[in-house]
């Protein structure tokens, strides 16, 4: 059976290693050669900006909320 001081030393070593790992530079976890699916056109976040801008305008003039849509819209009276 492991004595208590040994457990403490193991825990200290694990903690130190974890802390050192946290200080290491963050490495990309999806390599460039693993991004075939992400590069597919159907994964584009905004494949048709002319259409998404228009729909944003349609919703925007009828709703009180605005913003955080990733689009830049111009002013409109829309009375």
């Amino acid at each position: 059976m492991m004595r208590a001081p040994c457990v403490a030393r193991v825990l200290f070593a694990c903690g130190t290693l974890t802390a050192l790992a946290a200080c290491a530079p963050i490495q990309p976890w999806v390599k460039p050669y693993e991004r075939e699916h992400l590069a597919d056109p159907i994964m584009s976040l905004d494949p048709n900006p002319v259409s998404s801008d228009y729909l944003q305008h349609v919703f925007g003039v009828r709703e009180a909320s605005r913003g955080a849509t990733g689009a830049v819209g111009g002013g409109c009276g829309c009375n």
Partner: protein
Amino acid sequence: MQLSGLVKDVAAWPGGQRLRALLAALALALAWVAPARSDVLPDDRADVLFHRYDGGGLVVEGPSVLVQKKVTEKFAVNAAYYVDQISSASIDVVTTASPYKEKRQQESAGFEYLQGQTTYSGGFIDSNENDYASKTAFAGVSQSMFGDLSTVSIGFKRTWNNVYRSLKNEATDETYRDPSFHQQNENHSYTLGLTQVLTRNLIGNFDFETDVDEGYLSSPYRQVRYLISGALGTPTAIIGTETQKYPNTRTSNAVSVGLKYYLPYHAAVDGSLRYFHDTWAIGAETLQLHYAQPVWQHWLFEGFYRFYRQNSANFYQDVFARIDEYNYYTRDKELSTYHANTLGVGLSYQFLVPRVRLITKATANLRIDHMMVQYENFRDERYSKLFVGGDNGHASYAGGEPLYVLNANVLQAFFSIWF
């Protein structure tokens, strides 16, 4: 856009100190990350779209054109032209005025400049209609980092609006600008965004935006109803009307998170949630779902669903108990409590243009959306006996009309080419 200038500007508005600190840290982080290798600008493309909205007595249609072109490998320009041809007999119009036609025209131009993994962008938007003129300037910077797994962006937008009032010459059926009415307002907008590759099949994105408005924020046409005497919904109700009055300032915050996932059988599904709140006590939530499925060799089928709900502004009422009940008062249905469901389908066909080697790819696209909006405290005044000839065969009394329901169809047909 100078980051230091943006940081100072943010600090000038109420509650901006915390965001100033955040932007300062972000500016430091962007400066710290040295460009390791070059990113790329979007492909050259042009889009021509025809749009039509038809619902609630309002028809809006017109063209929209967008062109983006790389001048060099590091510098791209874009330009857009948009028209709304409006023919309105909406509930707001028929209960306070007579149907009208007008045109809104918008032009915009912008640029993107790539330096290493940093993209600088900016542009200008000019929008004009008979009773509203708006100019918008915007700038932003985005930075790819962590092996292009993360893209952080910040942006700033400022809009200057001139508000006019249209009058109608009933003899000639033409509208003209009321020379005795002119108001102004301004908007400042600050955005922060993050796009993150999470796995080899999953992308996440986060957006935050703060908007600050100052000036005349009301509409010169809309009126509120108030009870002079009697009881609402009964023949004893006597109703008066008054031009609505808005506060002159408004600050809002919106935050959204989204995920997009590549399905193993070559399809994609994405969803997003947005939460909104402002100083007029309006809260809103938006849920969006989208599914894209390539079919056969050249076709792409898409399905959309969007749910939206909001609660009304704290100075909104369908009928006020008396006109001096509040300092501010409105009956704009856009500031009322309601929820909306939108369903849409889209179909795209990809093809090559024969004998035109300049065009590397082209698509023909059709999209149809159906909106169903259920208002919860905005009543259909057309049913009221106070609206002459407007009982629609189901007469009711002011304050007792059925709640307003809006159904609308939105059509988009567009061609896109890449060159």
